[in-house]
């Protein structure tokens, strides 16, 4: 097995603006293996893969493919060498249809050069079917939910019949059953000789599907080996330098009065007759599958969507929220999911992204106090362990996980009484996840009401006092955090069970 690796990256070095990001990294991939590339946020995983994918040029080092030295000068060259790349940030073309996206760059054409639309649609359907999705291939991608977009990117890579597939956090917005389908496919691919580099912060997945691993830390390889021989704990330690407990976080609870009360909230086609309350100091979890409508529900609550009926009371006062700024005034904050689309202002600096929603905190006589901004950012940087060498650079230069942390800092700075987190730990490493959970619990302990939306049942199980499960726009179950199990949540989330449990 280890005799002649199929792909070797040797002594790769790369720095951005003089800051070294990769330091003599060596990575070997065997034919037909699934290789986990691990490391905390900002360790350099994506950068390494971008070098392999021809997106970035290394300052130094060699890439060897099938025993031949190759230079990956553009993404096109990399693809020509049989490498497919699923990027960490979605790269679909929103204004094209599903099948058009799938075949973009490798369209099927008939003899006179016209596109074979029906044939492409057929193949699209069949690949998507393998992933367990049935979307109309002629639907515009802009109308799809993020998880579908991610699935389309995966399917596109599968379509290419590559010999090496790079998957940079492919499951960050997928639900459990979609992930399982993906793993089944990955195993099939592996058996047919395809190699896969798999990047994920979900260590359980790694254990389940990967054969070997390489861990990066601050741009250096700190370990490599077979997954079977290691416990998750050792790998975690390698990555973040400490072990992480997988236990439930919170135990005792002493809630204050009801802070938010929602009655009969309905928006046609999105969610239906939603009732719930949140008390001060409570952490409430909402979970379900993609398309359950929870995102839309809370976007409505936050004033981003306006077409809904029902009543919302805060502190027993009815409120009318038709714009996010009114939501903030009423005391609701929302950390959106899909940061690239919804949260990141990529042309603003890291600091300015942090302060954007709470400008009043940084003003004096109507002018912005730059120093105060930087000062406050420093405190968040330490608190959330944000890895950034110069806070004046634009936020798109940060690693994915660190971008997410900046967004969380932004909403911590707004400091609303009710704070909604939609998929808050998307792309965040295990160590940082723990820290974020602690921050959320601290918020609750300070008497804030926290709502967490997540499609990962373990996440809500770990930190929520109460858990609501949604299915097709309705709340199908309510659990107390310590009473719920993952299996039971899944059976409500998939619609196989429907009757609503009442919380005692």
């Amino acid at each position: 097995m280890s005799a002649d690796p199929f792909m070797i990256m040797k002594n790769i070095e790369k720095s951005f603006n003089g800051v070294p990001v990769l330091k003599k990294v060596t990575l070997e991939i065997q034919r037909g293996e699934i290789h986990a590339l691990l490391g905390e946020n900002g360790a350099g995983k994506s950068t390494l893969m971008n070098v392999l994918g021809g997106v970035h040029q290394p300052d130094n080092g060699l890439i060897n493919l099938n025993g031949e030295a190759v230079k990956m000068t553009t993404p096109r060259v990399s693809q020509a060498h049989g490498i497919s790349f699923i990027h960490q940030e979605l790269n679909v073309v929103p204004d094209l249809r599903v099948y058009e996206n799938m075949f973009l760059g490798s369209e099927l054409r008939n003899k006179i050069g016209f596109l074979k639309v029906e044939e492409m649609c057929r193949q699209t359907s069949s690949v998507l079917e393998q992933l367990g999705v049935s979307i109309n291939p002629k639907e515009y991608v802009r109308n799809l939910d993020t998880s579908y977009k991610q699935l389309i990117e995966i399917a596109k890579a599968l379509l290419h019949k590559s010999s090496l597939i790079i998957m940079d956090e492919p499951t960050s917005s997928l639900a459990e059953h979609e992930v399982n389908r993906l793993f089944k496919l990955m195993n099939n691919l592996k058996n047919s000789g395809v190699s896969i580099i798999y990047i994920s912060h979900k260590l359980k997945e790694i254990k389940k599907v990967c054969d070997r691993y390489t861990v990066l830390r601050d741009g250096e390889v700190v370990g490599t080996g077979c997954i079977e021989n290691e416990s998750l704990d050792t790998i975690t330690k390698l990555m973040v330098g400490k072990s992480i407990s997988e236990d439930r976080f919170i135990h005792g609870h002493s809630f204050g009065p009801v802070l938010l009360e929602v009655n009969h909230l309905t928006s046609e086609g999105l969610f239906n007759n939603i009732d719930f309350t949140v008390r001060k100091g409570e952490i409430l979890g909402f979970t379900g599958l993609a398309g359950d409508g929870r995102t839309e529900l809370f976007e409505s609550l936050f004033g981003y969507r306006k077409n809904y009926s029902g009543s919302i009371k805060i502190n027993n006062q009815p409120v009318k929220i038709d714009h996010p700024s009114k939501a903030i005034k009423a005391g609701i904050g929302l950390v959106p999911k899909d940061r690239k689309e919804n949260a990141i202002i990529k042309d603003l600096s890291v600091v300015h992204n942090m302060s954007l929603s709470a400008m009043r905190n940084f003003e004096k006589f109507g002018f912005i106090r730059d120093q105060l901004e930087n000062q406050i950012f420093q405190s968040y940087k330490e608190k959330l362990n944000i890895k950034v060498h110069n806070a004046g650079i634009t936020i798109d230069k940060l690693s994915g996980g660190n971008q997410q942390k900046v967004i969380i800092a932004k909403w911590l700075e707004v400091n609303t009484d009710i704070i909604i987190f939609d998929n808050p730990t998307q792309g965040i490493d295990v160590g940082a996840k723990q820290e974020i959970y602690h921050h959320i619990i601290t918020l609750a302990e300070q008497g804030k009401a926290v709502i967490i939306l997540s499609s990962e049942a373990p996440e809500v199980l770990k930190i929520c006092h109460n858990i609501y499960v949604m299915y097709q726009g309705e709340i199908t179950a309510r659990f107390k955090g310590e009473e719920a199990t993952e299996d039971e949540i899944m059976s409500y989330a998939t619609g196989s069970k429907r009757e609503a449990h009442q919380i005692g």
Partner: protein
Amino acid sequence: MANLELKEYNQQTSTTKTRLSWLWSEYSVIIAFLIIFIAASIMSPRFLDINNQLNILMQVSIIGIVALGMTVVMLSGGIDLSVGSVLVLVGVISVLALNASGSIFVAILTALAIGSAAGFLNGLMVAKGRIASFIATLGMMAGARSIALYIAEGGSVSGKVSGFTAIANSDLWLIDYPIIIFLIMTVLVYVLMHKTRFGRYVYALGSNEKAALLSAIRVDRVKLGVYSLAGLLVSVAAIIETSRLNSISSSSSGVQYELDAIAAVIIGGTRMTGGRGKIIGTFFGVLILGILNNMMNLMNVSPHLQGFVKGLIIIVAVLFQKRE
């Protein structure tokens, strides 16, 4: 299983309301066109006259052909301000070629060559020079006009070969050649944009250039193709315009064609930032503008107020359309 259910959900809704709203969102420009058409027929009895209808088609054919190219450029996320000036330059040079060679064929070849060369140069600046298309084509606009003025010494040049005027002044069963050329070009560009790889790539790059690049599309070549195509279409328009009057003025021809073409494209529902829009939309956008100009003359609106009326109706037509 969850997915199957989702599918049902979909089918349920896509029946009635969805279909109507689809029609509305895809073809609202046609509805706008129909309303304006009906309003015009009511307001002026002469409007519906078959001759008047042919006149309108004839009048829009030049801008229409230019607007087709503009649509492609704008779908790719760019803009081409140079169309009017390039049209004049092409016209002037091809008349000189016509007179020098005595051959209409040579004149047409020259025109097509100059037009696509100017377009190609635009493409080079945008794709390789990474210059914003607005500024690159603004430079070309100034440059091409300038060269045309220099060559023609500020005046106009006239064809001296009989037969050249036949191109734009003949008809096939009552329908003038320019109209036929415009229709054929519309069909060709439609096919190119919707049935071939090139068109697909144009949409892709206008919608998300980075994703297009990561999909191994040769973005640079597509851009070169886009601007060259626009230049080629401009040269077709230039041939018609020159042949129609057997002359072209280096100073007054082609002035503000870019604004008319862009207005037609946007009225036709193409998004300013690219990636979204339709050739058919531009076709009707061009017709709407043509009807407006025609009506303004038919009704003898004061020249001072024509801008106001035209601006107002354009805005209402766009306002009326379905937006995101």
